[in-house]
């Protein structure tokens, strides 16, 4: 063991990075460095990383100065080759010793599965950590992923933005590494830990500390303004990577702009100028909060400039708003015909018709009342009209929201307006879901229409890229259905959507439905996350009856009973019946014929099945999966055990064999087809 250690510090100075890049990058960098140290048998202590818009830092305490020593065995020729009949070493054995650079006395003999062999034990050299770092650090820097990279000089080296300098310290030593033409920063006479303290003192390089500091400043001002103590977290994180040392001011805009919809005002401030809107009891005010880089600045001048720019933008928005509301909202419908949804999938007017058809179908399946139904129909009808408005042209992120605003302004009901507003929700994994049932149904219809349309015209979903938002659409769909507990057969809805597309789809329709169902299952599997045992997911998703709420429900139940005895017993029944059926040919097995029974145990087992069948159906219909599992185990575990002990299933006589297999099949399917295909689990041990 090497006990001598020094602290490690890697610092990358870079031109201003995109706001969302630094944090995940340093986190991955740190993981990769640790992984490499471990692979290289280099000991280390605690780790720390920090970053801001132009600085990426990874610090590791107590890094061993050498690799741990390790010895490994190198196998030579077999013993009978290494020694002659007299027991002397052969030429081959001496050759082996020579090539391995050891004396013949060092040769040893060991038993292996293939017989006895001679071998040598070799000590791997413990390389100095310095040398290893020089090799691996540049590779790691190159390989940690950024969403987009660029070149800026003739070296061809790629990074998110041009790198200004690199520093790699091990204790006081500056290690030279080569990464493109990036210059090396030089620090002399300072250890890594002292250097880190120095830059920590100079500014808030810890992203969490900095974020907290900014938040505190904002909350302070909000308190002073008697405003709602809420800070937009997404914007906060952006600002956190725009400013290294925060300083705050409050600005104002003319009250006449307050007649713009709240969402337009918020977007103008937060998306386009990165300043924080100020709300009082949920109502927008004409104040805003800006965070800028600290310094002795002309605050009055800066404030005036911010205000002027915001007002110019709001003036533009007001121009759009007034233009858009000059004519009744519904009049935009004609223009939808010339707005293309997607090249092969026709125009937006056609999409609206499909949305109406699909949402009507879903309403009927859910047996919703007429009031809801007609609201949803109306909302579907108006849902895409805002795409032609100037406001959405300028602020694409306000699609839906503006539709709802404009619908309300032209006399539609609150329910219809809200459904339009919400139907693009959720926008991502952590976004909120539609609040109303109307919005949810419209959102589901829109998403299914998108997924079916894109996959139906051959869009590839295999890559990690999601240019058509298929993954986002599918996950949103699953989240809405699950959280709103909408009892829908999603496969039926997909089928309906395929029919509504008529002849527009270019791929085989039968395969398409299966493909989409499989894709939805894949996304469900992803959304479920970690369960134990992990195979439970596959076991439950194998069920043909496809209802998303039910799937999540089963997952919950099964992961809570998976350590119970009756669960392993049920799984064992499935496993054993499944195993014996593996030998049978497909289509060979028919129905059970009582007249072919020869053994008492066969009669008894069949009786148990007949008893169990109605009970099982009843339990499954009521979604009592825990009881169904318990009852199934109780009914079959013991008797099946006896059966296998005393009755030969695979007998010579074909009719008898097939009849017995049919019985196994029947018992297997009683559970696997409607509860969970537990054959997917790893081998079961019943304790």
């Amino acid at each position: 063991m090497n006990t001598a250690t020094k602290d490690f510090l890697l610092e990358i100075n870079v031109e201003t990075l995109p706001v969302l890049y630094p944090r995940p990058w340093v986190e991955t960098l740190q993981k990769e460095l640790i992984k490499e140290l471990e692979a290289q048998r280099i000991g280390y202590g605690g780790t720390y990383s920090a970053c801001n818009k132009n600085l990426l830092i990874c610090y590791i305490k107590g890094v061993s100065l050498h690799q741990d020593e390790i010895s490994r065995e190198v196998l030579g020729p077999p013993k009978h080759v290494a020694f002659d009949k007299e027991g002397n070493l052969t030429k081959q054995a001496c050759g082996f010793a020579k090539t391995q650079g050891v004396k013949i006395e060092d040769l040893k003999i060991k038993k292996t599965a293939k017989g006895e062999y001679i071998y040598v034990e070799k000590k791997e050299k413990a390389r100095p950590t310095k040398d290893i770092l020089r090799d691996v650090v540049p590779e790691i820097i190159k390989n940690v992923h950024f969403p987009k990279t660029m070149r800026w000089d003739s070296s061809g080296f790629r990074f998110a933005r041009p790198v200004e300098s690199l520093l790699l310290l091990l204790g006081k030593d500056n290690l030279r590494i080569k990464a493109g033409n990036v210059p090396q920063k030089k620090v002399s006479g300072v250890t890594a830990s002292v250097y880190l303290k120095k830059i920590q003192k100079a500014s808030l390089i810890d992203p969490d500390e900095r974020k907290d500091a900014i938040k505190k400043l904002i909350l302070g001002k909000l308190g002073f303004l008697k405003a709602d103590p809420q800070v937009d977290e997404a914007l906060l994180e952006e600002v956190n990577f725009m400013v290294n040392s925060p300083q705050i001011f409050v600005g104002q805009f003319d009250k006449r702009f307050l007649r713009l919809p709240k969402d337009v005002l918020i977007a103008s401030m937060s998306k386009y100028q990165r300043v924080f809107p100020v709300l009082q009891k949920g109502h927008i005010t004409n104040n805003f909060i800006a965070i800028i880089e600290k310094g002795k600045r002309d605050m009055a001048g800066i404030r005036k400039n911010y205000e002027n720019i915001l007002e110019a933008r709001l003036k533009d928005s007001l121009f759009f708003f007034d233009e858009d509301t000059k004519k009744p909202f519904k009049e935009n419908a004609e223009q939808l015909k010339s707005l293309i949804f997607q090249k092969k999938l026709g125009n937006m007017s056609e999409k609206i018709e499909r949305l109406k058809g699909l949402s009507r179908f879903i309403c009927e399946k859910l047996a919703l009342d007429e009031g809801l139904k007609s609201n949803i129909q109306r909302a579907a009808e108006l849902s895409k009209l805002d795409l032609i408005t100037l406001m959405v042209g300028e602020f694409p992120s306000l699609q839906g929201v503006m539709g709802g605003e404009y619908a309300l302004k032209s006399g539609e009901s609150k329910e219809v307006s809200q459904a339009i507003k919400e139907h693009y929700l959720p926008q991502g994994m952590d976004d909120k879901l539609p609040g109303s049932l109307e919005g949810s149904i419209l959102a589901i219809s829109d998403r299914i229409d998108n997924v079916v349309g894109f996959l139906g015209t051959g869009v590839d979903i295999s890559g990690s890229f999601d240019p058509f938002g298929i993954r986002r659409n599918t996950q949103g769909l699953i989240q809405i259905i699950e959280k709103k507990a909408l009892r829908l057969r999603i496969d039926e809805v997909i089928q309906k959507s395929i029919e509504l597309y008529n002849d527009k789809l270019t791929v085989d329709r039968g395969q398409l439905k299966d493909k989409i169902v499989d894709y939805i299952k894949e996304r469900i599997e992803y959304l479920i996350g970690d369960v134990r045992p992990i195979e439970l997911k596959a076991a439950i998703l194998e069920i043909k009856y496809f209802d998303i709420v039910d799937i999540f429900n089963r997952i919950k139940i099964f992961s809570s009973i998976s350590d119970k005895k009756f669960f392993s017993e049920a799984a064992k029944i499935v496993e054993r019946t499944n195993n014996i059926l593996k030998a049978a040919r497909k289509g060979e097995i028919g129905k059970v014929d009582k007249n072919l029974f020869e053994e008492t145990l066969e009669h008894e087992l069949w009786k148990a099945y007949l008893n169990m069948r109605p009970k099982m159906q009843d339990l499954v219909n009521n979604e009592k999966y825990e009881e169904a599992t318990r009852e199934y185990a109780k009914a079959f575990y013991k008797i099946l055990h006896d059966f296998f002990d005393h009755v030969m299933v695979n007998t010579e006589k074909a009719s008898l064999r097939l009849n017995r297999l049919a019985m196994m099949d029947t018992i297997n399917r009683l559970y696997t087809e409607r509860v969970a295909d537990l054959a997917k689990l790893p081998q079961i041990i019943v304790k």
Partner: protein
Amino acid sequence: MKRLSFVEVVERLNKFWAKQGCTTVMPLDTEVGAGTFHPATFFKSLGNEKWRTAYIQPSRRPTDGRYADNPLRMQYYYQYQVLVKPSPREIKNIYLDSLKSLGIDLDLHEIRFVEDDWESPTLGAQGLGWEVWLDSLEITQFTYFQQIGGIELDMVSCEITYGIERLCMFIQNKNNVFDLEWQNGLKYGDLHKRHEIEHSKYNFDESNIDMHLKMFEFFEKEASALLSKKLVYPAYSFVLKASHAFNLLDARGAIGQSERARYIARIRSLAKRCAELYLSAAQGAATTS
């Protein structure tokens, strides 16, 4: 801070960049949407020849017209364009010095580089960089070119595009572009307001859609024919004309969403052919000499 007039700002920038070795070229006489379209940028950023240039370029964005009603937006404005190839390591600091040379105090005010990956789909051009904000006012687009005319660039140029009006608004402390001093007490509005109003009317209400649709076809055909004759500069000038015709049609809302993409693709494919022809001719010349 001395209140530089609009013309003085341009003069100072000319002087500053000339000192940096930039050749001052004259604006292109064809309607373009940005300084990037000037051959001094579009062609010269291709290949591996060093090049530094700076120039003013009147730019037209028909859809941005606001009848002179908006203090910041216009369908006709001026860009100050700098191209430095290859991009030197200290280019960002040189740029900041150029702002100081205009009398802007970067300590009293706040400069911010905000991610903006620039792209010109019609030119098949793409780069990474920032919008530069001065007290949240976007005054410059700062880009490291990665691709021009669909061609991946070996030698990376840095393009710096100043919005001169916006810089002047800051320097002269004016809220409205039309109140800027152009020169010797004459206002920007005196020179441009009527032009702006009339062109907004033309762009949005009066331009002859049929004529521009036909013009587009003519320009496209001519560009293509000239390309076959290997006359790259004339061909390119017709690509620019086609691009402007398209922009005018777009402002009239005469082009549907799907068609829009197709029009852009048509222009891009011509621009790409121009870039390829320019390069092959340049390489041909290099090998024969």
